[in-house]
């Protein structure tokens, strides 16, 4: 938990220009649009046309040894769902199955089809968000803000509330402490409750 928190905390607004997004889409037009959307939001963008290419780029295609591989730093992945060959869902799964660094990268799935089961399975598999196409500037702004503020989702969990990871930890600590001190009933209270039953 501490490691992933550190990864996110590195990206303060001052380094927004270095926020690197890898976009994956088989549609030429959509690649151009998403690229422009991201550049407009001051992100560094790499666009690829397939899941296979995306994995190659990340160094996860098995051809490159991950040990000592000087992979490019990617802060977010945005992938189309419906792609020939490897779907966005399959790409999402592959990334989330990786150890450490790669699993931490927020993956956003985009689709022109509003299918509830599809949305659910992507979120279950660990997608940061599911966006309906055509993707808007406000969607991209919201995403980059959200992730830059270090409020990304927890590993393996469902979509998080908008609180930072460190806040969660602190608040849960205080809650458990107070329940220890105050909520454990005294023996006399327990017996009185029992008698009422």
């Amino acid at each position: 938990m501490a490691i992933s928190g550190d990864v996110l905390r590195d990206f303060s607004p001052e380094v927004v220009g270095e926020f690197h997004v890898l976009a994956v889409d088989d549609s030429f037009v959509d690649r151009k649009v998403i690229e422009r959307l991201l550049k407009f939001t001051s992100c560094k963008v790499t666009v690829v046309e397939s899941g296979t290419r995306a994995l190659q780029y990340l160094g996860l295609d098995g051809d490159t040894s991950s040990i000592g591989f000087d992979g490019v730093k990617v802060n977010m992945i945005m992938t189309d769902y419906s792609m020939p060959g490897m779907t966005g869902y399959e790409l999402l799964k592959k990334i989330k199955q990786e150890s450490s660094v790669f699993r931490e990268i927020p993956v956003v799935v985009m689709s022109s089809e509003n299918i509830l089961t599809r949305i659910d399975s992507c979120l279950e598999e660990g997608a940061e968000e599911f966006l309906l196409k055509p993707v808007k500037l406000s969607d991209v702004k919201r995403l980059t803000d959200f992730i830059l503020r270090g409020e990304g989702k927890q590993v393996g969990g469902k979509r998080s509330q908008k609180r930072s990871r460190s806040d969660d930890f602190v608040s849960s600590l205080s809650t458990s402490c107070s329940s220890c001190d105050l909520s454990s009933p005294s023996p006399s209270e327990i017996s009185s409750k029992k008698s009422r039953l």
Partner: protein
Amino acid sequence: MDRNNSRRQVAAMKQSLFDQGLLDEQFIQLEELQDDANPNFVEEIVTLYYRDSSRLISNLEQTLERNPLDFNKLDTIMHQFKGSSSSIGAKKVKAESSLIREYCRTGNAEGCRKSYQQMKKEYVALRKKLENYFQLARQAGPLERACRPK
């Protein structure tokens, strides 16, 4: 002045395209991505769209010529076509594409072929109209700010 007049004409033409139901909000979204460094982004994207989708059009026509009609193949191509059309805000073309997909779902070959003809008409007509629009917009001046039609 001339420039104001040109700008009014551009706005009127855009309004008309929206009134005719040819364009939707996505077109405005794309205009909002234009800036000094990328003043013609929308025109570039539309040009790319027509170039890229011409390949899909050939595929579509080949597929429609066959008997019996391969509805799955047709639907797959239409999914791509509809997607790109949606990305540039081509409202009517997108709607016609949805119709074709519906006919694919119900296995209606006649319906597919007829609605394809209609869709192609809209697709071709939109190209001409957008070419005119972009030409006028260029003449009116480089900073055509995105403004929502009423």
